[in-house]
């Protein structure tokens, strides 16, 4: 196992190929929960955990079930099934085992299935033929990158509440424009590491 390669993958997927700012995935949630810092942090934590576990599950299913039985053409259906099943069971188990944690993070768990990143990461892992640890590193980096984007956005939007924005631009339009400016800053990361 090559730790340098894994570290590169984490940095690359969180900063350089940040899902939100360079690939535009997970925007619904990105704009939905970035209004307050508290929800943004809750979402980032839940999201990163679910991301890593579901990437690991999908990798196992892909390598040991789909490839031997030549089911790779069904990868969209199977991956969304795996993710949905995991989220549903995590929801049920958490409710039973730790109600306090469920009370805090349960809402985000339900939202996660509608996040495009959650299906994009297994698909990409399969497409790039990553091994098990590389898949984990990629998922972790993607989760962290999404969390970073959420926290940056939330801290700006909290200040925006008191700003004097032209009426038609209030709310979502101005958030988009701000996201554009952050994306511009993120293009500065490109070329940091060449994989």
């Amino acid at each position, binding site marked *: 196992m090559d730790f340098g390669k894994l570290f590169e993958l984490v940095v690359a997927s969180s900063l350089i190929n940040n899902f939100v700012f360079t690939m535009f995935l997970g925007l619904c949630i990105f704009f939905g929960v970035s209004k307050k810092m508290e929800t943004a942090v809750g979402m980032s934590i839940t999201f990163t955990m679910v991301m890593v576990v579901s990437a690991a599950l999908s990798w196992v299913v892909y390598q040991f079930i789909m490839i031997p039985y030549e089911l790779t053409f069904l990868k969209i259906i199977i991956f969304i099934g795996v993710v949905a099943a995991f989220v549903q069971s995590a929801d049920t188990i958490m409710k039973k085992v730790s109600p306090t944690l469920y009370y805090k993070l349960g809402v985000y768990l339900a939202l996660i299935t509608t996040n495009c990143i*959650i299906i994009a990461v297994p698909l990409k892992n399969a497409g790039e033929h990553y091994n098990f640890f590389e898949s984990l590193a990629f998922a972790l980096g993607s989760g962290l990158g999404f969390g970073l984007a959420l926290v940056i956005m939330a801290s700006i939007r909290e200040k925006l509440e008191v700003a004097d924005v032209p009426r038609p631009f209030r709310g979502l339009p101005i958030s988009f424009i701000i996201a554009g400016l952050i994306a511009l800053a993120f293009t500065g990361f490109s070329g940091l590491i060449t994989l």
Partner: protein
Amino acid sequence: MSLKPKSNWELIKNGMFGENTIFRMAISLCPSIAVTNGLKNGVALGVSVVFVQTMVNFTVSLLRKFIHPKIRIPIFMLIIAGYVTIIDMLMATYARAIYKEIGLYIQIIVAFASIFARAEVFANKNKVFSSLCDGFGMGVGFLLAMIVISFFRELLGKGELFGISLIAGNPLLIMILPAGGFLAVGLLMGFFNWIDMRFFGGKGASGV
């Protein structure tokens, strides 16, 4: 959704303008930025969404009496994933060049909130033909939004339309960069809000 039944034409119109997925409801935003750097890609994805949305609404509506409410979410997901796989394979075979660029986003139609939402809110409760119309209207609304955004981005960013050069040089390079996508959607959304407030007395986009 409103209680009194709407005519089919009203349903289509509602999907196209009143509840336009991107500019009014502000859902399914990911592809609106990711694939709108050229009209060709935008239209290709838009047409795929029209197909998936219409067929999903149709199927869900047909099966609505047989789907048990408790397990409806996985079933909707499977129906959507089925149609997305069809589109995915068709594109991979017959439109290789476009598929290379937007393939990932075609697959991601699975996780589109708009398609799922229409199946849940509308098709699950309404007759087959009106669901068909609703899905078609929603899909076309999405397609229109994609056309508007990619029209401006390709024209301003590359000086081209459908790959045909209209303006020499790269007028505004930022528009085809990732950042330009956010800016374009933000400005257009603001513009449509302004029209809505100025001429129709509306309150601007929902979901804020």
